[in-house]
């Protein structure tokens, strides 16, 4: 089935959903970002919540919903994180994570064994303050969204500072609490400029190229974008977080279409329901797609009631021509085929 779009050019179709809300083990709890290794494993990092440290973990699985365990624990020691925000994987399948609270980068091998940790909190050159997104370029250098310093920092994969760009403000190239970043095939850096309600495009050495987006909830408008990714054909996918939707733009930033979410019962969820028959029976009679008009055009409220909708889409990633949308509030990943 083709996704619901308001455009005549639908370019994604729903594939499946992976996820289950759990405090530990198989499933997610407030997942915020997803990454892929070269062996077909998918890693989703869970922000969890402090009240129950078990919830803070990385869940390892594959596209077929096979589960391969979790790793990472809550804390401030090596191999632990307090407030996980993002995840990226290098060519050797080492897993890089950011901790928003401690402003550090922690590295694990693909089995979850701690390898290294670097980064320190501050406002100076090479310091980090609230890192929220991490990506690799083709040279295995790292870009980090340095949130509270309102800039993007570039490091080697060993944490050696290379350069930084962006500054606090609302003018071209300026940032205000940037969140997700990504890199296209031409090594351009895209930034979800969260509080400025727009997407910024920079060259790999930090020169401002372009921007698009204005605050609002109409087609193409943005409300606190959290993440951005670009496909092989240069279509741009934006997690329009405050509007609880994904919007798709062409390479000039012209709006093409949007999706609001079409989640279905995941394999893990189905297995849970199969073993909890009373709950499954009651659920089968429930209307989980109520009339949207009763929620006062408030996307947060709409998504809290309509289960298939995105709720808290914090990360969009593309892997093998599929779009992965990580939803923190619904504890799942919705996957879409890219048709371009």
């Amino acid at each position, binding site marked *: 089935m083709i996704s619901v779009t308001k455009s005549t050019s639908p370019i994604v179709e729903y594939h499946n959903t992976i*996820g*289950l*809300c*759990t*405090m530990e083990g198989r499933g997610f709890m*407030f997942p915020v970002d997803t990454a892929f290794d070269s062996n077909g494993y998918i890693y989703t990092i869970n*922000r969890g*919540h*402090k*009240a129950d440290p078990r919830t803070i973990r990385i869940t390892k699985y594959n596209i077929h919903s096979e589960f391969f365990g979790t790793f990472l624990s809550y804390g401030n020691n090596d191999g632990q994180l307090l*407030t996980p925000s993002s995840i990226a994987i290098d060519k050797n399948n080492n897993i890089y994570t950011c901790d*928003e*609270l401690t402003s550090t980068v922690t590295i694990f091998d693909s089995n979850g064994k701690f390898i290294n940790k670097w980064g320190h909190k501050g406002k100076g050159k090479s310091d980090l303050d609230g890192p929220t997104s991490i990506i690799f370029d083709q040279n295995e250098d790292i870009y980090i969204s340095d949130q509270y310093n309102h800039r993007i920092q570039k490091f080697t994969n060993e944490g050696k500072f290379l350069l930084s760009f962006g500054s606090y403000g609302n003018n071209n190239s300026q940032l205000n609490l940037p*969140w997700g970043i990504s890199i296209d095939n031409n090594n351009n850096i895209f930034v979800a400029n*969260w509080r400025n309600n727009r997407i910024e495009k920079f060259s790999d050495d930090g020169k401002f190229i372009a921007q698009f987006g204005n605050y609002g909830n109409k087609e193409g408008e943005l409300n*606190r974008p*959290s993440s951005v990714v670009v496909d092989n054909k240069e279509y741009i996918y934006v997690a329009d*977080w*405050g509007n609880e939707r994904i919007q798709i733009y062409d390479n000039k930033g012209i709006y093409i279409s949007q999706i609001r979410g079409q*989640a279905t*019962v*995941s394999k*893990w*969820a189905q297995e*849970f*329901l199969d073993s*909890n028959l*009373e*709950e499954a029976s*009651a*659920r089968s*009679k*429930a*209307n*989980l797609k*109520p009339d949207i008009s*009763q929620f006062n055009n408030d996307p*947060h*409220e709409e998504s*809290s*009631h309509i*289960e298939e909708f995105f*709720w*808290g889409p914090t990360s969009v990633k593309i892997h093998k021509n599929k779009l992965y949308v990580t939803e*923190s*509030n*619904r*504890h*799942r990943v919705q996957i879409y085929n890219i048709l371009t």
Partner: protein
Amino acid sequence: MTNNNSDIKLIAHLLRRAGFGATKDELDKYNSIGYENVVDALIDNNNSQRINDALVRRYFPDQSVTHDQVGGGAYFLYRLLLTDSPLREKIALFWHNVFATGYSKVTNGKPLSDQLRMFRDHGLSKLDKLLLKLSKDPAMIIWLDNIDNHNGAINENYGRELLELFSMGVGNYSEEDIKECARAFTGWSIANSDYIKELAVRNSIMPYGKLAWRYEYKENDHDNGEKTFLGHKGNFNGEEIIKIICEQPATARFISRHLYHFFVADEPPVPAWPYKEPQDSEAIDILEKAYFDSGYDIGEMIRVLFNSEFFKSERCHYKKIKSPAELAGNILRTTNEFTEPSIKITEYNSQIGFMGQTLLNPPSVEGWHQGTEWIETGSLTERVNFASQQLGDISKPGIKKIIENIIKNEGNSISAQICVDKCLEQLGAIETSQHTYKILVEFAQNNGISDINLVNDKENATKKISELMSVIGSVPEFQQS
């Protein structure tokens, strides 16, 4: 004492009751517009510009989705600390206690946070409108079993508490009225009721986290037959029942006592009200009249209350023991630690629980008993420790600012007495008994504040003043309002 001081002390009293206290800097601003205008501003300002839900949702999804009372309680505390519309949060706290609905049975934080939002939005409106909202509130429908109140098989729980605890009080209706009331509310349910009930009983978070709840009227399950309620006869639905309830003098009196109890002075616990007259019957009469004159308008009753002599009278100053939420709200607004959401708010919310008030989870449908019941050995220790620790913490911006204000214009030295005076003034124009005052001055003297050169040894002076404020946090006048 100058008139200006009197005005400030009165406004300080108002802000302790209508909000969560105010520092001297805030009091000076309020004082510049005059007492009655402050009252009007508190009642009429319904939109705090300082609350930023997007930040909460970004950094603390557990507080915005609120699976449980931990996240929801932390969000409520965040609002108490940052709001510039304090009466809105105070009235939400008031109704949260009167219409007490608890996580222990609801097992879903979002409906409870939604209920608090409803109290915030409608808690100062007319009682009939508020009771209608309450009767359609999904958390209440689960909490008091109206989900199981069916045509031909009534569940009396909501009908009973609507009359007993939410509007009229024991002794003003019959058992038959309860049954008829329950019949009128049959069919007042929630969407997907079987599924939601199943999830609530199991406290299930699967498959995709907790769903939000919404009201649904099930016409086929409503008993549309004739009912006799409080002497009225008709094919009543819930709306008519609420109209009849709001017309009752008993309702006017019950709500008036609640407002007096919360905003003026501690009364005995609600279950004792049928047997004990109000301590100030004249005040209750005034509030009852305001209730009818305004068409059951809670905001107008409160306007009358705050402008009344019985509220302004020094006889009722410091006659209420702050609830844990009020105490923590007052302290943390003073320390000014938060300008945006923070993980620390969750910790402080836990400490409010240790003091005996777990937000979003009152102990029963009767809410928290107030007054001296807030004070027991364990909770008193928590209260005193929390106040002393926070007010003595010079790393907190609000405390730093207060100490700077105290030292400013004092030259090289400050006497113990002036230091105490200025600390009390800065912390919100606090008045103490002579006994407390003497102890504070002795402490300041013995701690050596007057021996310190404020210019050359500012660090030591700051430490000594913070120690004095730490002691002030423990005195009865600070723990009371």
